């Protein structure tokens, strides 16, 4: 009976760990303490991804740029970073919910550095789970 209970406990324990790991992942992880693999300017990132079809998505990268817009479309806080010369192309940063208080201080035209999970490019570059690294 004791052996059966231990076995049951072990199963529940393993299942709990599995669930914990399964519910986490980089998409929900706080990236504040994660070191970015690469650093770009917004302009450079857009140009690089436009010309290079073989980029590594799912990387944590840091991007510097000028804030073009802060919005809450779809009830998600998003910052659009603009390049210096590229028109109508942006880096769309879907912000981690931990950033709400910091984002209130961000204004259009501010120069900032954002870290996030690179997803890829459509017309604009898309990054998820972003955090503001620091004001520049």
């Amino acid at each position: 009976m004791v052996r059966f209970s231990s076995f049951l406990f072990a199963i529940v324990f393993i299942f709990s760990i599995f669930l914990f790991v399964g519910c986490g992942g980089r998409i929900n992880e706080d990236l504040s303490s994660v070191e970015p693999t690469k650093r770009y300017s917004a302009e450079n990132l857009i140009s690089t991804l436009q010309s290079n079809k073989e980029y590594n998505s799912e990387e944590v990268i840091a991007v510097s740029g000028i804030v073009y817009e802060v919005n809450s479309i779809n009830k998600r806080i998003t910052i659009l970073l603009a390049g210096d010369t590229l028109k109508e192309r942006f880096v769309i940063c879907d912000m981690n919910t931990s950033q709400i208080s910091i984002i209130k201080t961000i204004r259009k035209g501010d120069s900032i550095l954002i870290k996030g999970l690179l997803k890829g490019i459509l017309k604009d570059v898309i990054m998820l789970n972003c955090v503001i690294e620091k004001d520049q």
Partner: protein
Amino acid sequence: MIRVLAIFFLIAGSTNLVEVDEKVIARQGKVSFFSYTSVEDIKAENNQVLSVIDLDQKKIAVSMLMNAFIFEKALMREHFNESYLESDIYPKAVFEGEIIDFDRTITGEQTRIIKGVFAMHGKSKELEIKSKIEKKDNKYIVSGVFETLVKDYDINIPPLLAGNIAKSISVEFRFEYEPYED
């Protein structure tokens, strides 16, 4: 003669002899899908879906990154991207179609059928989607819901997990468009 020429150029300049189609863009469109079974419910959403409408041609194009869908559990996202949709091989899903009988002069709401081809996971399927189109000030909002079958897109689900995923998936979308100069 000079006066005639001046009048010609004045008229030409004001009427735009070379007409450019007017377009609107949504960079942060939302597409969600839902799978309901007795075993589990799976929901995911993508909030960075790109769409452009050519208002004069009544054409609409939609493009989304498959790896940008957000799931409740990382394991679901992993299965979705690696096993079912193979997002590294087929990174985008694309829809191209026409808004039937779309009238851009109507302010307020109009319900229209959007007819086109949806391509995902290397397969294309013709769709007709009933959509609500709202015009407010200079913005258009297009939204709707439709059902689509998993088998139409050649998605292989292992027999062991077949009970976890519905055969018919409910897809919901909402796009807010603003003026766009290409």
